[in-house]
Structure formats: structure tokens, C-alpha cells
């Protein structure tokens, strides 16, 4: 087995053009797609940077104080008065909005400066700010009433942007929409749960920002990686075909070695190559494009678990391709596979673009391709490093791998005897 494995790996290392396809190509594509499609993925922060002016046309402290007065006048029991008063202070919408922009993930993206109306208008005209958010007179009061007493009177704020159609404005607009919705909607929760209201309110806002979306570099690093590991199948099957054509395979048969040893070596070689390939692609992408911010052991070990499962399944796929190639005595299988099947699999697996809008059928198929399943596993891990969520996609990869393996064993020409 060792002899086979060393030979298979050596052959690959000597093959420049294959190495180029397996390593350089995906890396190039990651760079190209990552840069050029920056901005269509919501996680691409740099592309969305903007400066905004915040204009407040009211006195926040006064508004809060007046609400607190209203609370006291309502004549509720003292402990409730106390709680509501505190809630009013900590849930002040203006403070919430500012702290939302100051939040770690948004502060890299958005710089907020307080100005008065005239100043803001001037900055907007001079294009030193991209947008102006105005909190009109009565905003705090209305919002707080809404939140604490469930009044139906909605609060509004005003967004003034230099370029209304820019993606930045879209993002800002949706952040604000979400904020306003939170402010108005959370009201009912606040009112119902009384004491815990303040925590609930901030929790509601958290949801906008806690989940870090996927950047174009993350998307394409993973998309290209899971696509290009498939080429290893072709490479290995191509090698087997060459061995058969050049009659080295006959020499191997003459040596009385179990042909299964040969097949398993091919599978293990493929898995090993895929592992190295994934490790190189991920670490290079992380180093050069800062693709993965997380540098914890936990994060990378999750990535490793997915990668190893994927490598195993590509190993089985390679074995299947080797079996068919040897049986047909033709290089048609690796040729067709690398010439079209891989692109198809990559497409339905979501390597090129998210499949959100695609037909259910297509997504179902994609989910059962090793690359598609691995892709969703990686993404789910990126969004939320939760092992239990990996189980399902990894299970799918495993099942498909075992099917490949069984087919490979069934189709492999066992030329033990004179055949």
C-alpha cells in the first residue's frame, strides 16, 4: 500500500499542469470573483463604508424626563413606576440608534457625526457625508410612548441620502427600517413583560447585527474550494487510465498484488490531495484576503471536520471514477467529468452563486452533491459555529460517499485471475 501511495502522490507532484488546475486556478478565481463581486454579498463591509450625519431636532433628556413624568402621573404602583422610569432611560431610541451605529460590526462601516440641520445639509451638498438621518421633534417621546404604553402613534425618522439608489443607501435604509420596526414593535413586548423590557428591547436590535453575513471572499473561497476538489477525481482517474494504456497496470497485475490495494491507494491518495488542497486554499485565502477573521482553534477545527469529510467523499468518488475508467478502458470518464459534470455539480452545489431563488428541485439535488453539502456545512459553520448544525450536511456527504464506494467496488474489474 505504501508503495502505491508514494507513487500516486509523486506522480501528481510531478504533474505541473494538474497542480495548476488543482491549486492555482481556484486561487485565481477566488481573487477575481472575491474582488469583483464585492458588494453583492451583505457581508462585504469595506464596499459599504459611509459617513452619515445625525441631526437631532429635539432634546433627548427633556423628552425622557417628560415621559418619566407621564409615568409618575399614571399612578401605578411604585415598583412599576421605578421599572418603567428606568426602561425609559435605557431604551431611549436616540441612544439606541447611536449605540447601534457604534456597535462593533457597524462602526467599521458607518461613521456617525452629530450635526445641526444646516451643517448637515451643507456637508451633504459638499459630499463630505453620504447621508443625513434626522430625528424629528417628538421622536423620542413618540417612540417611548409607543414602547412603554403601546400607543398606536408610530414614530418616524427621516433619511436623506446623496445617492438614493446606491447599495450603501439600501443597506442604511434597511438598518433604519429594522430599527424603526424594532422600536415600534418591541413596544408590545416591553409593555407585556414589564420588568424585562429594557433587555428585550436591546435584544431585538441585536438580531440585526449579531449574525455576521458572508463576504464575497468567504463565499468564493468556499465555493471554489469545494468545486476544485472535484477535479482531483478526474486527475486520479486520468492517472489510472494512463497506467492502463501504458501497461503499467499490467505490470501491477503481474506482481500478484491485490487489485483492491491499488484501488484503495487511489482513494486515499485522492483524499490526501484534497485535504492538502483545502488546507492551502483556506489558509492562503485567510492570509492574503483576510477571508476568515476567526482565528480560534474551535473555528478552524470545525472547518477541518468538514474538510476531512469532504476529502473522504472525494476519495470515494475518485475510486468510483477509477473503477469505471479501468472497466471501460477509456479516458472518457475523467474527460467528461472535468469537462462538464464538475461545472454542473458546482452550479447546483451553489459554488457560483447562492441558490436562494432556484427551483426547489435543483436545490435538493445540489444538497446531495458532496460539494453542495460541504458548501452549506461551511457556510452554516461560518454563520454559527454550532456542531449540531453540521450533522445533517455531513451525514449527506457521508451517505453519498458510501454509495460511491460501494459502486466502485462493484464496478472495479477484479482481474485477480487471468481475465
Amino acid at each position: 500500500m505504501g508503495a502505491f501511495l508514494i507513487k500516486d502522490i509523486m506522480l501528481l507532484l510531478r504533474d505541473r499542469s494538474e497542480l495548476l488546475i488543482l491549486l492555482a486556478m481556484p486561487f485565481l478565481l477566488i481573487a477575481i470573483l472575491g474582488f469583483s463581486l464585492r458588494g453583492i454579498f451583505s457581508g462585504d463591509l469595506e464596499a459599504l463604508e459611509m459617513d452619515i450625519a445625525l441631526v437631532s431636532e429635539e432634546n433627548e433628556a427633556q423628552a425622557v424626563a417628560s415621559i418619566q413624568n407621564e409615568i409618575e402621573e399614571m399612578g401605578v404602583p411604585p415598583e412599576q413606576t421605578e421599572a418603567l422610569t428606568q426602561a425609559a432611560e435605557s431604551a431611549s431610541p436616540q441612544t439606541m440608534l447611536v449605540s447601534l451605529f457604534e456597535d462593533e460590526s457597524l462602526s467599521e462601516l458607518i461613521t456617525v457625526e452629530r450635526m445641526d440641520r444646516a451643517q448637515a445639509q451643507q456637508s451633504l451638498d459638499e459630499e463630505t457625508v453620504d447621508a443625513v438621518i434626522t430625528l424629528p421633534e417628538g421622536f423620542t417621546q413618540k417612540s417611548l410612548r409607543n414602547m412603554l404604553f403601546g400607543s398606536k402613534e408610530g414614530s418616524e425618522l427621516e433619511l436623506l441620502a446623496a445617492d438614493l439608489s446606491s447599495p450603501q443607501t439600501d443597506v442604511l435604509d434597511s438598518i433604519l427600517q429594522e430599527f424603526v420596526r424594532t422600536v415600534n414593535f418591541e413596544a408590545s413586548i416591553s409593555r407585556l413583560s414589564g420588568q424585562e423590557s429594557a433587555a428585550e428591547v436591546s435584544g431585538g436590535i441585536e438580531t440585526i447585527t449579531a449574525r455576521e453575513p458572508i463576504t464575497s471572499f468567504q463565499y468564493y473561497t468556499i465555493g471554489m474550494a469545494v468545486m476544485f476538489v472535484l477535479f482531483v477525481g478526474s486527475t486520479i482517474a486520468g492517472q489510472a487510465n494512463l497506467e492502463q494504456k501504458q501497461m503499467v497496470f499490467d505490470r501491477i497485475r503481474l506482481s500478484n498484488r491485490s487489485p483492491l490495494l491499488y484501488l484503495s491507494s487511489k482513494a486515499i491518495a485522492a483524499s490526501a490531495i484534497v485535504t492538502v488542497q483545502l488546507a492551502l486554499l483556506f489558509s492562503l485565502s485567510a492570509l492574503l484576503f483576510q477571508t476568515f477573521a476567526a482565528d480560534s482553534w474551535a473555528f478552524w477545527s470545525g472547518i477541518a471536520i468538514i474538510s476531512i469529510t469532504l476529502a473522504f467523499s472525494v476519495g470515494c468518488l475518485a475510486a468510483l471514477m477509477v473503477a469505471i475508467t479501468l472497466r471501460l478502458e477509456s479516458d472518457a470518464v475523467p474527460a467528461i467529468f472535468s469537462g462538464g459534470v464538475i461545472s454542473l455539480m458546482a452550479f447546483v452545489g451553489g459554488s457560483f452563486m447562492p441558490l436562494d431563488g432556484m427551483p426547489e428541485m435543483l436545490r435538493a439535488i445540489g444538497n446531495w452533491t458532496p460539494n453542495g453539502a460541504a458548501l452549506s456545512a461551511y457556510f452554516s459553520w461560518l454563520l454559527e459555529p454550532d456542531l449540531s448544525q453540521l450533522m445533517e450536511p455531513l451525514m449527506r456527504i457521508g451517505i453519498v460517499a458510501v454509495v460511491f464506494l460501494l459502486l466502485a467496488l462493484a464496478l472495479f474489474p477484479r482481474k485477480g485471475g487471468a481475465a
Partner: protein
Amino acid sequence: MLETDKLTKQFKDTIAVDDVSLVLKRGESVGLLGPNGAGKSTAIAMISTLMKPSSGDVRLNGKSVLKKPDDMRRVLGVVPQKIALYEELSAYENLKFFGRLYGLSGNKLEQRIEYVLELVGLADRKKELVKNYSGGMQRRVNLAAAMMHEPEVLIMDEPTVGIDPQSRNHLLETIRKLNRDEGMTVLYTSHYMEEVEKLCDRVYIMDHGKVIAEGTKEELKAILSDQETVLIEFDQNYPELFKKLSEIEGVQHSTIEEQSLKLIIPRGTRMLAALFHEAERYGAQVINVNVQTPTLEDVFLRLTGRKLRD
């Protein structure tokens, strides 16, 4: 020690090997001679257990190897017609891989590699990639690889096609040495007569899948013992004269090669007078006349009416 019994291989529409029975005795050097497509490689594939015969049997020391090929594979060293090596690996790496397949390792492996490289004269260039070798050197490594497991029988399928004379001589010398000095049994396939004449004790001649003659070189040539070959060289090609000469009474076969004419005639035929007479009539100048004893090539020509090589 090794024999085939009515070995036959039928592909869809061709019978590549037809009822071939060969015998290889221990220590013998046997030639298998035949033109392209005669079925030599197919026969060898069956003998070396790489292909199942349509019918017939292959036996090693009296035991059929069709069901249990292991013993046969252990004794056989097969040198395929193609260069069955990894081009991207060096000679040394190739030999190491094949050696390990046969369970060699460590010192023993290194020693064996050293020995076979020495044998084929490539010890000093073992680190170069096979693809960078000349055709002749590749052929030599092809032989070396078959020698890794110390086989008792060496089966070679046209091991000298397309190589330079120097490599060819080296290879033939090596094989002869293995056979004479080390008692290696050799089955040597070729369509080069001279090689088989030089190397082999006994010869099988194949054509169209069948063995059409067999015996020692002398026995085969005896087929032509009542004949002789006349080679006449002219100053240029005279198509009409050549045709005329071929039709002289007694000529059994003729071949034209550029400006010379080869005639097979019954021994003792007097034809030189007629030859010069005709030449004069056509104004042709005879440069050389050579009367030869027959070669195996002539035997083949006689048996099949065709030349071994086109």
C-alpha cells in the same frame, strides 16, 4: 517447463491467435517470429496470464495457470511491447516501485535495483526521469523492471523496436548473457530475423495467428536447403528488365529493392548467362552479384509469400 496447448484467442471478428502450441524448456532461448498483426502480443498476453484465452490452455510445469495465475506470475518476467513505466518518475523510482510491489524492501531492494541497473548499463543515469531518456534507454529500463523479482523465465515482446543500434546491441548482449550465463529461459518475440538468428536456439514462426513453422534455425533453413538466393545489384532500377528476369524459368520468388533484385532459385540452377544476356539487351550495368545461403527471412518469404516487414 512452460507450454501452451492449442491456445486460441478470438476477438469479435478476428482470430488473433489460432491453435498455437508452444513449448519452452528450462534454460532454452526461443524465438517467436512473425510480421505485424501475426498475433505475437496476444499470445504473450495469454501466456503471461494477462488475458483469458478463448480456448486452449497454458501450463507451467504441467499445471494449468488459467485458474491460478499466481505461480506463473512469480516465475515470469514480462517485458511488454510498450514502455510500461512511469514517465514522470526516474528509472530508480520506477524500479523501486516495482520492487516494492514484489515485496522487496530495504537493503535487498537497493541491491537488486543496483544489480538490474548495472545489467542494462544505466547505473550512472538512474536519477533521470524516464521521459527524458532516449528510446533505447527506455527499453533498457523496461527490461530492468521485469528483472526486479528475479524471474526464471523472461518473456519479451519486441524489446528492440525503434531503438538505436548501440542500445540494441547492448540489449541483445544482455539477454544473451542472461540466457547463457545465468540459465534464464527466454521467449523472444520479434520481427527482426537477425535478432532471432543471433539469440535463439529454437524458433516458432507465426503468421495470421497460426504457427506456420517451428524448429531450430538449422531445421528451418533446411526447408530452403534445395534453394539459394541470388542478389543482383544494378546501377539503377530497370522495371522491365526486373520483370523479365523474375520470369526466367526456375525462379521461385523475386523481390525488388530499389536498384537490386533478389531471386530465389533451385540450388544449382545455371542462370548467370541468361542474366547477363538480358542485362546487356536493356543496356543495364550489373554492379554486384551475390549468391547467399538462405536466412530465416527467406524461409518466411517462402512460407508465406510475403516479407516479414513491409
